[in-house]
């Protein structure tokens, strides 16, 4: 069953220097319980996609298209109804643990809020549940920790606290924005374990935004590759990693340390640039004259969806 279905999503920001279009014609389905990874280089619009789903973008953003969660189109939903979805239907595991907890509020209270709101728990019950959740997520002395403020916690503990917060409303979809960014290998493994644990506990689907192909490989059923605001390839994890179809995906895999770290030459085009043909044209090794002006749709090549006229 499809949990979230995104159709022709476009997100643009109005800025002084014109319109920045961070998401272009995104089509993406997430099944119940599925884990979908989004990869792509920095600034390609991954976080913006995640925040578009939650409708948590700054005021200068304009989002069009359709984001269907179960039966409802989130983009036309009222603020009130959207608030019920946030936390309750779709949870967020934010990007940076160090700044994502309120410094002036006890950890416990920050977890309780969601419990009281979405599970209609009383204060004492929520308090107990918050401690239980922290314990479950591997925090020792959870009772004491729930009485502490964020600055008293280590980075790993903060991440666990945020994980607890993200699932308080028993969401059916969890959006995790670069949960492993800037972590060393050991902690990274822990976070991957944590995410597995969260999935096992809640049965939620996971939208994992990451730079890290390793992490994506460990967790994801399906991987979506974004480039300059567009989805350029989308397929089952093993398919993408073993037999990438798009030249950009190939390049990405070759830039991995194991593959000899050969970076793709050049830079991705600015998001405010309007390009009628392929956005990867300038950097592409197999480009042809047609790529320059012809609109390139997502098409099925060997079972992957690929945005390339000459993919094999």
């Amino acid at each position, binding site marked *: 069953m499809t949990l979230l279905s995104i159709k022709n999503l476009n997100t643009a920001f109005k800025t002084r220097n014109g319109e920045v279009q961070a998401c272009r014609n995104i089509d993406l389905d997430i099944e119940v319980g599925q884990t979908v990874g989004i990869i792509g280089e920095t600034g390609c619009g991954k976080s913006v996609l995640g925040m578009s789903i939650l409708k948590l973008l700054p005021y200068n953003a304009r989002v069009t298209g359709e984001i269907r969660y179960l039966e409802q189109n989130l983009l036309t939903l009222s603020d009130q109804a959207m608030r019920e979805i946030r936390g309750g239907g779709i949870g967020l595991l934010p990007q940076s643990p160090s700044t994502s907890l309120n410094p002036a509020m006890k950890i416990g209270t920050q977890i309780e809020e969601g419990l009281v709101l979405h599970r209609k728990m009383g204060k004492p019950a929520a308090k107990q549940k918050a401690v239980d959740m922290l314990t479950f997520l591997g925090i020792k002395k959870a009772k004491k920790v729930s009485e502490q403020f964020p600055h008293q916690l280590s980075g790993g503990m903060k991440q666990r606290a945020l994980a607890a917060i*993200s699932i308080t409303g028993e969401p059916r979809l969890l959006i995790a924005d670069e949960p492993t960014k800037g972590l060393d290998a050991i902690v990274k493994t822990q976070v991957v374990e944590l995410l597995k644990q969260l999935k096992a506990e809640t049965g939620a689907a996971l939208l994992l935004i990451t730079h890290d192909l390793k992490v994506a490989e460990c967790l994801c059923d399906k991987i979506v590759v974004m480039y300059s605001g567009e989805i350029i390839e989308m397929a089952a994890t093993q398919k993408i990693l073993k037999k990438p179809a798009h030249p950009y995906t190939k390049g990405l895999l070759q830039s991995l340390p194991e593959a000899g770290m050969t970076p793709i030459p050049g830079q991705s085009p600015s998001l405010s640039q309007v390009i009628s043909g392929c956005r990867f044209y300038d950097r592409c090794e197999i480009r042809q004259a047609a790529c320059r002006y012809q609109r390139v749709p997502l098409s099925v090549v060997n079972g992957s969806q690929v945005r390339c006229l000459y993919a094999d």
Partner: protein
Amino acid sequence: MYRYIGKRLCLLLIVILGVTVLTFTLMHAAPGDMAEMIAISRYGAENLTTAEVEAIRLSEGLDSPVMVQYFHWLTHMISGDFGNSLITGEPVLEEILIRLPATLKLSFAALLVSLVIAIPAGVIAASKQHSLMDYLTMSSALIGTSVPNFWLGLLLILLFSVTLGWFPVFGYGGLRYMVLPALTLGAGLAGITTRLTRSSMLEVLNQDYVTTARSKGLSERRIIFKHALKNAFIPIITVIGIQLGHLLGGTVIVESIFAWPGIGKLLVDSIYARDFATVQACALLFAIIFVLINLIVDVLYLFLNPKISYQKE
């Protein structure tokens, strides 16, 4: 933390010492012969003899080197002797202490007025950023900071005393007398405080943890009051501290308009009368109060910030 406070106190002492030097220099750089002026104030300008002036120069120690005079003055002040008024001959400190309560009363009332207006206005403007409400609030705030308070005072008198007759034109007494001066002094302050409240609220609302709070599905109201306000208060307090300085400066004008018998009016009157001793003492007092307030605000900031107070344990 205590080390920090100790360090601040040392700095404070240095600054206050500097303030005394500056005040002293100003008085001595002023044109005119001090001894002669004292003599004039005592005996009148007519039939003043050189002998009398010279006698005063000797008795007041005005013939000794400047450094000696400064230390003489400083030691006297430390022992609580701020000299006598050149006009009345009464001890300056006594006069100041009599008037201090009036100024403090006015300042606190004005602070209250400004906070009651500014904090809600700033919070609302920030939470409804880019709305019409926001623009209106911010425009009024900017106008508020640009209105000369001496003019505002007159307008208020014109409207509420002269035309409507609700409040007395000037004078000192019960609450009725306090309304217009406090409004005058508080309004300009409210403008600045509103702007700063809004910007510190916005700063907080742009933080990651507010996004976390939003992602929980909390109501905007809960986000503002439970999550943002508490964090915004720390910078707001600092702002209030800085603003108190403007407030002290404003008392000079407001007290003059409304004949409010505080230190501000005393200062202006003494300048008119060229009563150096009183001017000196008032200026010094204003500076000391101002520095002390800033110190208190800084220390308060430490206590309010959970991060720092924790390290103390």
